[in-house]
């Protein structure tokens, strides 16, 4: 429509990112509200139940979203957020009681908002929004919000100074009323602070007061108390005695007095005659222009600090992740250029032409390398975000899914402040969601079953994250029934994946079967897990992030899924190898060692090639076989060295080690990981593509899936053989 504001691309991006943040925060707050409500329901001792401040925060979130979407002309979003805001307003003003149904409605509204914002993000407009759904939802909201309001204002009746009432928002006035109704005393604490640092002093004061009761509002005193200082009245309600309050504020220069009996609040302009102490500054006159910014004498320094602290408060910049990607690519290219220059220096040295020059060039290259490494680290740091961005979404998932499944499940989160690359955190949401679905659907028993088994009635899912060296480990552990390997085995046999006389499954084999596309032990497809994404999708997603997925399970006690991820994606150290005329990169973090072996060292055990490596037997993998490469004419394994020797790159960890046979080791270097593109997505054994710097793009081996494949192959052969 022509009279609508038409947002440009940049404002739209800002809108999207702020809306997403608001929605995420709303989600967190609603979960907290849910927990408060449950504690209240459970009658837990000392539980405060629903926190009015939290409810007000939620209201403010919906309010902001409404204001924003209105400014951008998104009608559907405005309608939903506006009606949500109405309901929240009724809740915070006590006109509607908060219960589980209302909370469900709020969660549903949040889901709808999330989908609407994503829709805008994808299409740049609201086209395709489901208007019928929005209207139906709004009708439900209005029904909930439409109950009659309770008693009218009583704070005014109780004798609160109208000058204070005049500056209160409706919510603050309501809180004042509520506290009067509850028979609590209303007080104000007046304190004067240095203008530059008042927020810290005020935070201390407010923090202490909150322990005594409820802080209703904070009023800045209008008349200047003294140059460079500012006075505040903190209005609060409590059932403690005045003497206790003074004791609680010991050490702070705050003056407590009852609000109702007091003649007037601090420093109001109409009370100006009462405060003639402060030296009056000259009124702004014609000469004011030249005097600017003219802080009063003695306040100059404080004002200086005010300036700097203001700057720091507004110095955060929001950045589109695409811009960081671009920056990262440039850094990556610089790193590659450095490798090229280093190569030139080396060539010069070998040619022996100008030893001083080549030496200087090598030194300059090393110095450049150090700075580039630092630059790279800094850029990566910028991309790091806390895992809470993904974990918070899980709290909502658990709430919804457990309700749908009729089970009671608590989610316990730890390590949510662990940081990972933004891209990884984004890509983790779906796999985590699926693992949690599995835990709720297949793992955790119904309440009745749990009680019968002597387990706590409420199931528990622990979501943990912690850093381990250069990696981040994420664990999802449930206290459900664990995985029944016999059942996995019989399903596998029924589907022809195993021979009927196959031996009992080892944990790893069972896990591999669970990760087979389409594998399910469920007889019926449920709303929760049966959506066509299985563990195979989870494993693929994790391996595309260069991560590993493991499982530990105990019958009757629960299952733990362990995801190990690199902290950053974009640039990795790799070992570059060549075989069969092709070049590959192997992430150095996954390489244990390199061996040179003679063809005679290879033995064949159960039709598999292995070598003896110290105390253990190491299975070998030949890339030309796995990728079915057509060898160049006259090619022989080992690249045709006279003695037939071969290189073996030992990758993986412990039991899951594998020797990859290659012709040549070309060296270590930093490589920039590129997106693999649709063509290669899902190709087993390939994690992605990388640039080598000499305009050569190579494939990066996916060590995890290669080892899986080798192990699966071994298992299969054993049954046949």
């Amino acid at each position, binding site marked *: 429509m022509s009279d609508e504001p038409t947002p440009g691309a940049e404002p739209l991006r800002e809108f999207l990112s702020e809306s997403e943040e608001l929605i995420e925060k709303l989600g967190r707050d609603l979960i907290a509200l849910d927990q408060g409500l449950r504690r209240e329901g459970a009658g837990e001792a000392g539980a405060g139940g629903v926190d009015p401040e939290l409810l007000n925060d939620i209201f*403010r979130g919906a309010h*902001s979203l409404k*204001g924003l979407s209105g400014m951008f002309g998104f009608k559907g979003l405005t309608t939903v957020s506006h009606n949500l805001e109405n309901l929240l307003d009724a809740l915070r003003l006590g006109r509607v009681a908060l219960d589980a149904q209302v909370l469900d409605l709020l969660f549903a509204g949040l889901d709808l908002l999330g989908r609407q914002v994503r829709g805008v993000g994808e299409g740049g407009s609201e086209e395709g929004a489901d208007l019928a759904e929005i209207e139906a939802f709004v009708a439900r909201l209005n029904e909930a919000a439409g109950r009659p309001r309770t008693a009218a204002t009583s704070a005014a009746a109780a004798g609160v100074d109208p000058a204070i009432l005049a500056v209160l928002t409706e919510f603050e006035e309501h809180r004042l009323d509520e506290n009067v109704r509850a028979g609590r005393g209303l007080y104000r604490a007046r304190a004067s602070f240095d203008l530059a640092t008042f927020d810290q002093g005020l935070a201390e004061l407010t923090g202490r007061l909150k322990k005594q009761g409820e802080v209703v509002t904070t*009023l*800045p005193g209008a008349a200047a108390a003294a140059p460079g200082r500012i006075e505040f009245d903190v209005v609060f309600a409590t059932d403690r005695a005045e003497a206790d309050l003074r004791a609680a504020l010991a050490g702070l220069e705050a003056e407590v007095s009852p609000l109702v009996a007091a003649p007037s609040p601090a420093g109001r302009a109409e009370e100006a005659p009462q405060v003639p102490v402060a030296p009056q500054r000259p009124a702004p006159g014609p000469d004011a222009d030249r005097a600017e*910014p003219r802080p009063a004498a003695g306040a100059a320094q404080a004002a200086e600090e*005010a300036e700097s602290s203001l700057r720091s408060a507004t110095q955060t910049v*929001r950045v589109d992740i695409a811009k960081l990607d671009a920056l990262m690519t440039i850094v990556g290219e610089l790193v590659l250029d450095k490798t090229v220059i280093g190569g030139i220096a080396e060539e010069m040295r070998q040619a022996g032409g100008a030893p001083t020059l080549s030496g200087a060039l090598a030194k300059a290259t090393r110095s450049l390398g150090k700075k580039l490494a630092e630059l790279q680290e800094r850029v990566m740091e910028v991309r790091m975000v806390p895992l809470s961005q993904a974990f918070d979404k899980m709290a909502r998932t658990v709430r919804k899914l457990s309700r749908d499944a009729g089970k009671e499940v608590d989610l316990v989160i730890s390590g949510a402040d662990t940081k990972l690359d933004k891209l990884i955190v984004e890509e983790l949401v779906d796999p985590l969601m699926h693992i949690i679905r599995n835990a709720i659907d297949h793992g955790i028993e119904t309440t009745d079953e749990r009680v019968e088994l002597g387990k706590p009635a409420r199931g528990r899912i622990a979501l943990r994250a912690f850093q381990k060296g250069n990696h981040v480990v994420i664990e999802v552990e449930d206290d459900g029934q664990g995985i029944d390997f016999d059942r996995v085995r019989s399903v596998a046999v029924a589907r022809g994946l195993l021979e009927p006389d196959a031996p009992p499954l080892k944990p790893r084999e069972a896990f591999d079967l669970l990760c087979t596309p389409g594998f399910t032990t469920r007889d019926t497809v449920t709303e929760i897990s049966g959506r066509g994404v299985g563990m195979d999708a989870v494993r693929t997603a994790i391996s595309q992030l260069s991560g590993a997925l493991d499982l530990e399970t105990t019958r009757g006690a629960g299952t733990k899924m362990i995801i190990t991820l690199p902290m950053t994606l974009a640039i990795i150290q790799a070992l570059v190898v060549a075989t069969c005329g092709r070049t590959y990169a192997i992430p150095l973090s996954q390489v244990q060692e390199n061996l040179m072996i003679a063809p005679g060292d290879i033995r064949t055990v159960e039709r598999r090639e292995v070598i003896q490596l110290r105390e253990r037997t190491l299975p070998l993998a030949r890339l030309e076989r796995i990728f079915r490469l057509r060898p160049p004419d006259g090619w022989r394994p080992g690249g045709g060295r006279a003695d037939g020797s071969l290189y073996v790159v030992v990758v993986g960890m412990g039991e899951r080690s594998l020797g990859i046979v290659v012709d040549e080791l070309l060296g270590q270097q930093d490589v920039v990981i590129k997106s693999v593109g649709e063509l290669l997505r899902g190709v087993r054994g390939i994690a992605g593509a990388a640039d080598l710097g000499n305009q050569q793009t190579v494939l990066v081996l996916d060590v995890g899936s290669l080892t899986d494949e080798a192990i699966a192959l071994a298992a299969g052969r054993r049954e046949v053989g």
Partner: protein
Amino acid sequence: MAYRILIAEDSPTMRSLLASTIEDVADAEIVETGTGFEALKVLPRHRFDLIITDINMPDINGLELVHFVKSNPEYQRIPLIIITTEGSSRDQERGLKLGADAYLVKPFRPEALQQTVARLLPREAR
């Protein structure tokens, strides 16, 4: 000389929208603050020609800021616009009673903001 305008608004998107809308028509240096507290801190640092404040802010509410400005001899001459949302006539009334010079109701059209700003800025730039 350019006008100097203070914007107190907790939504960064809204802040930059306000700032760019004003910059389109006025030569103005805009000081953005995300909270009422920040606004209290910057006020004594500069001579402002206009203040624009949101009502719903996390620390002190916009009404309290209006009261602070309009009852303080140092600042009361500065024109002040409050930004409210549909259905909050209570805040509009109170804001005006406390001395606000104008209010805008979200969602407003850019021209509405531009006209209000043009009306309230002093005729001659300093």
